[in-house]
């Protein structure tokens, strides 16, 4: 497949994309910032529609999720490529915010600010939000990235031309260019595991139950229960991405 000198088309495509994104943001500003309100258009039918819950109160920053993700999915070991990683936020008494993620949290964390200077500190595990209105799939010029019928955002390696649009478009920084395959790469919610009825690796290897994987369609699922029992929030709700990753105890400082 040859796709060169398509820059002109790409540029106009990007312009259109930006225009759309702006319009979408404006409409959601009118809605209250409510986790349920920002999940739009739940598809009807019997099929599962997967979502994610993360309980920041339970996360101990051991990095088992980040580590198991790299191994399960053959993510390159260099410290710039992650499908799943952990950040430590520290809000200092002087009001400044320090965000650390040494090697994505893969090797664990050590507290870098002395207790006396800390106002509060917490860990935030990050990964693809599997948005139902994902900006990343909308900008793909070749139909190589898409949302599966189960609500999982995937990449077709054979079709991806490595143009990096989607990497730019993701507001959560969840995509990278695979250094060897030269195609975009991202979390698949361990599609190969969930299709066999297993938990994604990062969920199976969480020691505290801070990560909850489940079917948003199934009103009896652990995930729906979690959403009922906690005050959850998505990241960057104003961007109207339809994110399906819900955080309990998300502080306003988290970007």
């Amino acid at each position, binding site marked *: 497949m040859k796709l060169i000198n398509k820059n002109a088309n790409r540029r106009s495509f990007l312009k259109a994309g930006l225009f759309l994104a702006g319009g979408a943001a404006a409409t959601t500003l009118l809605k209250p910032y409510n986790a349920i309100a920002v999940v739009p258009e739940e598809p009807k039918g019997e099929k599962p529609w997967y979502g994610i819950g993360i309980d920041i*109160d339970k996360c101990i920053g051991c990095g088992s999720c980040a580590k198991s993700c790299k191994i399960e999915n053959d993510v390159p070991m260099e410290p710039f490529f992650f499908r799943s990683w952990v950040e430590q936020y*520290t809000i200092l008494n002087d009001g400044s915010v320090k965000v650390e993620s040494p090697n994505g949290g893969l090797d664990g964390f050590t507290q870098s600010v002395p207790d006396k200077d800390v106002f509060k500190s917490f860990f935030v595990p990050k990964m693809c939000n599997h948005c139902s209105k994902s900006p990343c799939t909308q900008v793909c010029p070749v139909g190589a990235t*898409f949302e599966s019928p189960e609500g999982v955002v995937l990449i077709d390696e054979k079709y991806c031309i490595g143009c990096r649009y989607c990497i730019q478009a993701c507001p959560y920084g969840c995509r990278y260019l695979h250094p060897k395959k030269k195609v975009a790469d991202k979390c698949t919610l361990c599609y190969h595991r969930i299709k066999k009825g297993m938990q994604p690796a990062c969920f199976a290897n969480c020691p505290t139950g801070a990560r909850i994987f489940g079917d948003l369609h199934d009103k009896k699922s652990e995930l729906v229960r979690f959403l009922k029992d906690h005050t959850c929030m998505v990241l960057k709700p104003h961007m109207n991405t339809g994110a399906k990753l819900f955080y309990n105890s998300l502080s306003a400082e988290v970007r």
Partner: protein
Amino acid sequence: MHLSSSSFGKYGHYRAFALNEIAGKKIKYAGEASCVVCHKSEANHKKKGDHARLSCEICHGAGSRHASYAGNFKSKNLPDSLLLNKPVERQFCARCHQDNLARVKIKCDTINFSAVKLVNTKDHNVADEDTRLPYKCIDCHNPHMP
């Protein structure tokens, strides 16, 4: 340019075959249920202790190959390619148990509620007081039933 494959557009603006290709990838983390079949005593210990919720593979690493093939070896001599980690170093336990304010969820003068019990691994039983020999955590705590 041949952009379209026979399955393109079946479910949406993408190649439907891609779904099966992605779903067909190999699994590396077998899950605790598969370990239990051959390692009953470790599993029983763990079930009763404070590490009950820790999956075996958090500590021992991805065990899918091990779980599939270790059964072929009756002796204790597993080939290297099937051996799993045995994380005996203090540093490993510290990943979860080292003091860190981000692990303390409610802190006031009298209560420290944390999601996990914390110690300062730099001074919690570092070495034997008489012999000065360094301690590993597992000299005192059974990793399967700490």
